C-alpha cells in the first residue's frame, strides 16, 4: 500500500525528470554561472579574478552610456511591439475572414520568416535595404524620396527587420484569442445598434486583449534580446544591449562586465513583462477569466 502511494506521488516527478534535467542543465546552470561571473573582478593584465565585487553593477548603473544603451534597446523593442500590434490585429482579422484554403496558404506565408535561418534572412534584408537595393530604387523611381534612405546601420532598418521576423508570433497569439471569440457577439452588438467601428472597438478588441498582450510580451522579449538582426543590420552604429554584451565578452574580454549587463537585461525584461501583464490583466480581468 505504502509502496503504491509512494510510486504514485513520485510518478509526476519521474515523468518530468528528463525535461527538468534539460531545463536545469541548459538554462538554470548557465544562468547561475553567468550571475556568479558578474560578481567577479576583471583585471586588464591578469584576466578574471575569483574575488567578489559589485563593481560591475556599479559601473553599469553609474555610467550614462549604459542608460542610453538600455533606453535605446527599450524604445526599439517597444516600437517593434507597437508596429506588430498595429499590423498584426488587422492582418489576423483579414486572415480569419478568408476561405479555409487561402487561410492555409497565407499562414505559411506569415510563418515563413520563422522557417528561414536568421543569417540568410538578415543578409537578404541587407541586400533589400542597401543604398542601391530594390527598396531604395523603388522609392527613388516613385519619387517618394529625393535621395536613398539610410536603412542599413540605422534604427529604421533594425525595426523593419525585427518586425518582419517577430510579426508571426503576434499573429499566432491574436489568432488563438480570435478562435475563442464567439462569432455571434459581433452580430449581437450590431443588432443592438452599434456600427461596425463601435462594434470592433467596444466588443471585439477588448476580447482580443489577452492575445494581443501575450503576443506583445513575446515580441518585446524577443526584440530586446535579439542579437543577429541588430548586429548585422544595425552594425556598429546602432548599438543595443545584446551587441554591447557581445563586445564585452569577445572584444574587451571583460566577461564579468558582460555578464553583469546580461543580468541587468534579464531583470529589465522581466520587470517590463510583469508590469505590463499586471496592468493589462487588471484592466481586462473579465476577459482573462
Amino acid at each position, binding site marked *: 500500500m505504502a509502496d503504491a502511494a509512494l510510486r504514485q506521488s513520485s510518478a509526476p516527478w519521474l515523468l518530468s525528470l528528463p525535461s527538468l534535467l534539460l531545463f536545469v542543465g541548459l538554462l538554470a546552470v548557465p544562468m547561475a554561472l553567468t550571475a556568479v561571473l558578474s560578481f567577479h573582478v576583471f583585471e586588464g593584465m591578469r584576466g578574471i579574478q575569483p574575488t567578489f565585487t559589485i563593481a560591475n553593477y556599479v559601473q553599469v548603473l553609474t555610467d550614462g552610456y549604459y542608460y542610453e544603451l538600455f533606453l535605446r534597446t527599450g524604445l526599439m523593442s517597444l516600437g517593434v511591439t507597437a508596429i506588430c500590434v498595429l499590423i498584426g490585429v488587422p492582418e489576423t482579422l483579414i486572415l480569419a475572414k478568408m476561405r479555409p484554403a487561402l487561410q492555409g496558404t497565407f499562414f505559411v506565408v506569415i510563418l515563413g520568416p520563422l522557417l528561414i535561418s536568421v543569417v540568410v534572412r538578415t543578409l537578404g534584408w541587407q541586400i533589400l535595404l542597401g543604398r542601391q537595393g530594390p527598396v531604395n530604387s523603388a522609392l527613388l523611381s516613385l519619387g517618394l524620396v529625393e535621395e536613398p534612405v539610410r536603412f542599413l546601420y540605422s534604427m529604421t532598418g533594425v525595426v523593419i527587420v525585427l518586425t518582419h521576423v517577430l510579426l508571426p508570433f503576434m499573429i499566432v497569439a491574436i489568432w488563438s484569442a480570435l478562435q475563442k471569440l464567439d462569432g455571434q457577439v459581433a452580430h449581437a452588438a450590431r443588432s443592438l*445598434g452599434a456600427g461596425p467601428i*463601435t462594434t470592433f472597438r467596444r466588443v471585439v478588441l477588448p476580447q482580443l486583449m489577452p492575445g494581443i498582450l501575450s503576443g506583445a510580451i513575446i515580441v518585446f522579449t524577443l526584440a530586446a534580446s535579439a542579437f543577429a538582426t541588430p548586429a548585422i543590420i544595425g552594425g556598429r552604429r546602432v548599438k543595443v544591449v545584446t551587441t554591447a554584451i557581445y563586445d564585452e565578452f569577445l572584444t574587451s574580454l571583460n566577461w564579468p562586465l558582460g555578464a553583469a549587463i546580461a543580468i541587468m537585461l534579464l531583470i529589465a525584461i522581466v520587470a517590463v513583462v510583469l508590469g505590463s501583464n499586471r496592468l493589462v490583466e487588471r484592466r481586462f480581468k473579465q476577459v482573462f477569466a
Partner: protein
Amino acid sequence: MSTMSLRGLSKSFGNVQAVNNLDLNVEGGEFLSLLGPSGCGKTTTLQMVAGFLPPTAGKVLVEGEDITYVVPEKRDMGIVFQSYALFPHMTIAQNVGFGLEMRKMKRPQLQERVDEALSMVRLSGLEDRYPSQLSGGQRQRVAIARVLAIRPRVLLLDEPMSNLDAKLRGDMHVELRALQRRLGITTILVTHDQVEAMTMSDRIAVMTGGKIAELGTPQQVYDKPVSEFAYRFLGQTNEINGEISVSDAGSTAVRVGSASIPVEASEAPQGGAIKLFVRPERLRICPADNSKVKGKITTRLFLGGVWFYDIDSDIGHLRVSAPNLGAAQADEGETVGIDWNPGDMQVATPEVANG
C-alpha cells in the same frame, strides 16, 4: 405590435438554394416559429431578417417598410442568440444597457430601463456581476433582458433554449411565452425542437428544403398537416402503404394486403398507390375479435406517462401509444385488435423532392 412580411425571400450559396422563394406574413404581436431540421433554411431566413446576410432575391418588410438592405444596427430588432453572445468584458448592467447606450440614452433613464428589463427576467441584484459568474439559465435571461431593454419592433429568437437542461428549458418556455404575450412583441423563433415550437407559438411554419412545408397553429400542423414532411417531422407517425379501391357501392377504401381501410372519398386521390398516416395515440388496442385490424405485439415500452406498443399487423408495422391509466396492459407476444376513429387515418400530399 409590428407586422412583418417576407416576400419571395431567397438565398443561395453557390449551387445550394438555402432559402427558396419564401413568403410569410407575421401578424403584429404574433409568436411565430420557424421549425425544421438542420439545413432546412430556418437560420438563413433569420439571418436575412436580422440583416446579417443579404438575400439573393426577395424582400423583408416591417410595417410595410422595406428593410431588405438596411444595416443590422438600424433595424431595431432584438436577437437572442443560441450562444447568448453576451459581452464577457462587461457587467450585466453594461450588457443590458449597451443597446440603450448606442441609442444615446441619458444616464438616469438608461438606468431605469436596465432595471426594468432585469426585473422582467427576474435578475434584479446581479447588475454588477460578469457573464462568467452566472449560470447558463441566468445568462440566457440576461440575453433576453438585453434585447427587451431596447424595446425592439421585432424579437428574433435563434434556438435560444438549446443550451439549457430539459427542466429549465420547460420553465423558460412558459416564462418567455408569458413575457412575450404581456409585451405584445412580434416574435420569430427559430428552432429544431418541436416541443419548444408547439408550447410557445401562435403559429408554426414547418420548413424543409428552404421552403415552408406547413403553416398553421400548433394544433393544425400536428393534427391535420397537409404535407407528408410535417407528418414525419412532427411527433411520431405510422405510414401505411396501400392501393385505392372503389367498391361497387361507391365507397372508397384503401387496400393493404388482405385488409381494407375505409377512407373518406374527398381525401383520396383518384387511383393508384396511396400513403395513409396515423398518429400512435389515435390507434387503440382492443380485443382481437371484430376489430378492423389484428396484430401481434412485438415490443412493449413503458415511458411512465404512456405505453408504447410495436405491433406487427395485417397492414404493416404499427406503433400504438396508450396513456398509463393503471389498468392491466397487453403483453408482448399477444395478438390484439387495433381500432381507430374514422378520420384519424389521413392522406397527405407527397413530399416533393427538392433538387
